[in-house]
């Protein structure tokens, strides 16, 4: 049996043209098709990796894994297998999320558990394969954990420190299944929810189930998903649309990408169910063009669903028709905003529109539209399968379920984590994240991407839920979670995010277009060089800027047309709230404690450490270093542009910075 399409039902095959409503049930329940019993059993066992004759090698080949070298590893494995003349099946999965230990390679021998190996480079491959496939032993140098019961020192993956405190709902299948293979998805409880919805539930039943689960939009807004669906369901219109926002633009966020690369069928299933619930017959997935692998996986998922009749006319003989199309974003962060996203799909500049009218009234092409984030859709099948009560049992009173975060920055265990709402920030940073590397001290965590705020140690016990985070001046956002240590300058961070926001502002409304530029200029002046020639007018302007910063920030927050502008001042406002001394030392003392704001630093060559090799002199872009060979060199301060190239080049650590 090559695929589930070969099952017969009363001597007839299921196909898109002749849909059989029992098709999915029969796929996962071999006992229901007596004529194909044995063959189906064998196939299902194969799909679940219960019965296989050759070893299976799983490689985590999502974008993050590939960037770490998984492509080279795959080639090396193929070459080595040929050399050893061993037959093995290679399965490319998505990423399980532990970025810090990528690339990962899982090896499953027949009748044995799947063992996870980490930080595999192409150089490790020969020894890895010899040890595992020929010697049939564990490659203990690089073992991380296993699926199945803990054996000795090799922990079950969910008992390892990184995964212990997580609750994997959305990321359930990522890194485990082959994201291209629809049959494998089906035996992993895939499309069970769709089956239940189409055969046993009415659209309003689905809406109510989602309302009761308490699911809130995971894109950052936190608007109750069920309510959004209910509003659209109530509208009477010949056409309605459901749209998946996969434009993940926050720098440092890769949650949606991982879900789309690791478990695309889940997202598609969520959209079909959503379409059914609101009465839409067409859906769009708006995915940013910078995610070619995710787009490829989605295209494959959609075409496979079409092949199986799970998209198209009369799905599973229910009378419901639904189709999906992918629209590639063209590079505009603002298109993550609902009305801008709609404008982009319509072929226009991605500029937001005032609301009302709300998208559920008049959205895409003027029709009722529901837009939800990837992670929101990824929760749907789990809610339908396990029930709204189960979902509502996770998390806090107002924030139900789990949230996926992308941990990055100065943290030991960087990667993707999924935690129940209500867990504290401290637990995420230290228990799951492993704390700060190099024995440095924690300084702040940025939540919510460029629109979020930086939270210091003092509020680290805040639980992760929509309301609590807002109260301390941050926001949940889409899941970006950047950790900073004492080597990060908070003013520089504010400058970085403001620069990003300024570049991405669509330019339509005055407060965002002009206001964020002026805020950025004020911050830039704070980090600019102090030279003895600074005129009184410059000094006055620097102070004036700071005095007016708060006012400007508040007006921008009050009057901007869309969320981008409204949250643009957050990095500055939260910086002023929690790190005021740092701002003041920049403004008044003209000092950057973290040594980041280059123009406020002075570079000096320590004469007793300098060997006179002249390397720095050659590297200096402004010819600011002079000296004779074998004699200590000297930096001309007036020519020094504070780029730091000399520090990076010097092999003797002879250049001091203060």
């Amino acid at each position, binding site marked *: 049996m090559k695929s589930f399409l070969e099952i017969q039902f009363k001597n007839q095959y299921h196909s898109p043209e002749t849909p059989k409503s029992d098709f999915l049930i029969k796929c996962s329940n071999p006992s229901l098709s007596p004529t194909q019993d044995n063959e189906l059993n064998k196939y299902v066992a194969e799909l679940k990796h219960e019965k296989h004759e050759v070893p299976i090698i799983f490689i985590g080949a999502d974008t993050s894994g590939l960037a770490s070298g998984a492509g080279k590893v795959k080639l090396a494995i193929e070459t080595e297998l040929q050399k050893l003349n061993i037959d093995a099946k290679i399965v490319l999965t998505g990423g399980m999320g532990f970025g810090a230990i990528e690339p990962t390679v899982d090896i499953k021998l027949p009748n044995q558990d799947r063992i996870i190996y980490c930080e595999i480079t192409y150089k490790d491959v020969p020894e890895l394969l010899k040890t595992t496939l020929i010697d049939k032993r564990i490659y203990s140098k690089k073992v991380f954990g296993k699926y199945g019961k803990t054996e000795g020192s090799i922990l079950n993956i969910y008992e390892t420190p990184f995964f212990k405190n997580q609750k994997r709902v959305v990321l359930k299948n990522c890194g485990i299944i082959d994201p291209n293979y629809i049959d494998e998805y089906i035996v992993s409880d895939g499309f069970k929810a769709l089956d239940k919805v189409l055969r046993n539930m009415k659209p309003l039943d689905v809406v109510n189930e989602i309302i009761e689960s308490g699911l809130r939009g995971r894109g950052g807004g936190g608007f109750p998903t069920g309510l959004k669906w209910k509003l659209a369901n109530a509208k009477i219109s010949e056409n309605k649309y459901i749209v998946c926002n996969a434009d993940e633009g926050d720098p440092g966020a890769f949650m949606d990408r991982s879900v789309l690369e690791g478990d695309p069928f889940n997202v598609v299933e969520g959209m079909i169910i959503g379409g059914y619930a609101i009465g839409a017959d067409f859906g769009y997935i708006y995915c940013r063009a910078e995610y070619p692998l995710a787009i490829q996986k989605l295209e494959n998922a959609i075409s496979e669903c079409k092949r199986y009749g799970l998209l198209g006319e009369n799905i599973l003989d229910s009378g419901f028709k639904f189709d999906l199309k992918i629209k590639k974003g063209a590079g*505009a962060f603002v298109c993550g905003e609902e009305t801008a996203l709609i404008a982009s799909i319509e072929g226009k*500049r991605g500029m937001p*529109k*005032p609301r*009302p009218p709300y998208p559920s009234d008049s959205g895409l092409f003027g029709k009722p539209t529901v837009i939800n984030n990837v992670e929101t859709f990824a929760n749907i099948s789990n809610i339908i399968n396990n029930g709204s009560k189960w979902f509502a049992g996770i998390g806090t009173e107002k924030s139900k379920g789990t949230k996926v975060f992308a941990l990055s920055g100065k943290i030991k265990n960087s990667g993707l984590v999924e935690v129940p709402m209500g867990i504290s920030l401290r637990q995420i940073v230290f228990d799951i994240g492993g704390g700060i590397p190099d024995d440095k001290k924690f300084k702040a965590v940025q939540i919510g991407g460029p629109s979020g705020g930086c939270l210091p140690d003092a509020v680290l016990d805040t639980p992760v839920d929509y309301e609590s985070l807002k109260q301390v001046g941050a926001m949940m956002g889409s899941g970006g979670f950047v950790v900073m240590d004492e080597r990060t300058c908070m003013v520089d961070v504010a400058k970085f995010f403001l620069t990003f926001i*300024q*570049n*991405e*502002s*669509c*330019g*339509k*409304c*005055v*407060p965002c*277009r*002009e*206001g964020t*530029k*002026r805020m950025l*200029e004020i911050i830039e002046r704070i980090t600019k060089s102090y030279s003895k020639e600074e005129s009184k007018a410059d000094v006055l*302007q620097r102070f*004036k*800027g700071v005095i*007016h910063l708060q*006012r*400007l920030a508040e*007006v921008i*927050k*009050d*009057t*901007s*047309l869309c969320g981008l502008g*409204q949250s643009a001042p957050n990095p500055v406002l939260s910086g002023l709230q929690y790190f005021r001394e740092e701002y003041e030392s920049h403004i008044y003392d003209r000092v950057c404690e973290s040594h980041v704001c280059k123009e406020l630093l002075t570079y000096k060559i320590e004469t007793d450490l300098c060997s006179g090799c002249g390397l720095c002199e050659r590297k200096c872009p402004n010819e600011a270093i002079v000296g004779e060979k074998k004699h200590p060199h000297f930096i001309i301060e007036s020519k020094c542009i504070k780029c730091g190239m000399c520090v990076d080049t010097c092999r003797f650590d002879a250049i001091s910075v203060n």
Partner: protein
Amino acid sequence: MVEFSINNINVKAENGMTILDAAKSVGIDIPTLCHMKDLFPTGACRMCVVEVDGMRGLTPSCAFPVAEGMVVQTNSPRVRRARKTIVELLIENHPQDCLICVRNKNCELQDLSEKYAIREHRFAGEKKNHAIDISSPSIERDPAKCILCGRCVRTCNEIQKIGAIDFTNRGFRSNVTTPYNKGLNVSDCILCGQCILACPTAALREKSHSKEVINALTNKDKYCIVQIAPAVRASLGEEYNLPIGTNVTGQIVTGLRRLGFRKVFDTNFAADLTIMEESTELINRITSSGVLPMFTSCCPGWVKFVEQNNPEILNHISTCKSPHEMEGALLKTYYAKKMGLQPENIFVVSIMPCTVKKYESDRPELTEENMPDVDAVLTVRELVRIFNMAGIDFNGLPEDEFDNPLGVSTGAAAIFGTSGGVMEAALRTAYSKLTNQILPTLELNDLRGMSGVKEASIIINGKQINVAVVNGIGNVREIVKDVQEGKSKYHFIEVMACPGGCINGGGQPIHQKPEKIKKRMDVLYNIDTKSSIRMSHENPIVLKIYDEFFGEPNSLEAHRILHTSYIDRKSILRNNA
């Protein structure tokens, strides 16, 4: 109806009305910049924000509907601070050139700065830096002064449906310009100037020819003649704060004489002449199976539109020159001869409500032995500036009459300035010519008003003649498509690029009072009703000119002086892209 409160005043308003409109209805003025009446709000400028109880941020009143029990504050400290900051932010990215700017004292940014008492530069920083586009003879673009309100873009795209300019780039680098920032003269622009009327600052303005005119007036060797268009008399008074809809013909004539023009003639005269030529041309086409439908040609914006987009239907357009060009041509030939003047010493100035006429007067076909029919075109606004510089106290001027002979005109000529006027005038004459009778009612109401496309049918000698009037170039596409496909049911079509006709032309006084179109139209219709002669073919001077000079309409000589030809500009523009 919903009941709610604004500034503690109880208000009743229709369901679905915006807070902005509801406030206006009780005498509360909320400032706007990007707002355009009759178009969907974009919510771009944020000037109109108000404080609404229960809403998180401030609410744009132009885009938010009223609701039962809503509590609105339009002048709270939070609102004032927000509006002040928005104006300050606009000012910081704007050249501080007020003293030398053409919109000094008629600029919406100045008004706001004054209203919100802006007294300091809080947010000084980088200013945008764009070059001025002076490529076209009619319109200048100065993007450095643009406040990105979007009104010009919406006018050009949504009302005129031309789309010569649009927003480009993004964020702080946003700029309203042509594709690749090329000159306006090689873009899709038809120079109608509706964008100038929409622009709150001097980012869009007419190209000035005041210097040429003043130089000619000061030059003793030049014999300066001036003519004024029908629509000018209906609007010029607005620049002097006279009520909209005041007929100031007599004062304009006096003013022009005081400037030093030797003769002050009336374009309306040539309008009657145009009707003679055009109605004869139409009748010929109808009776001898010529190319139909025929389009009017007096709107140079419409002509440019066809040359650039649909040159294949150029043969449908009447070959008649536009009235002021006919008058200029007459002046340099017939009149020069009659008065014993050297044509090269005559300097003809047209005062127009229009910007395209400047480009039109530059056309090489509109010359007589290498001398342009019209030497310079001034907009109403330019003339007012010249009056002011010359110390002419307009309101105190006595009235005077046009010079003869080219100052005599009929009521039919006067209504040329309104949409449908040319058609009415033409039908009055065509009907009489063919039936030897007079139309039962001279006012053809089906052709009046602001509808986009107006149609009428009239039976002449048992044959049904179908006519249409296109009001604003944005409404022309369906008709052009039908003509291209040979499916048009019309015989004669009038097209005016500006909505409402010339009285709403790109050269008229700039302000946003909504009653301007109707009131200016009324002036012209009143002139018509009060005229003793109301049909062009009864203009005695016109008849005399045919006797003395042209023989009869469409004669060889008439064709030489009063008719023109057109160019396929589409291939020229495409090949040079």
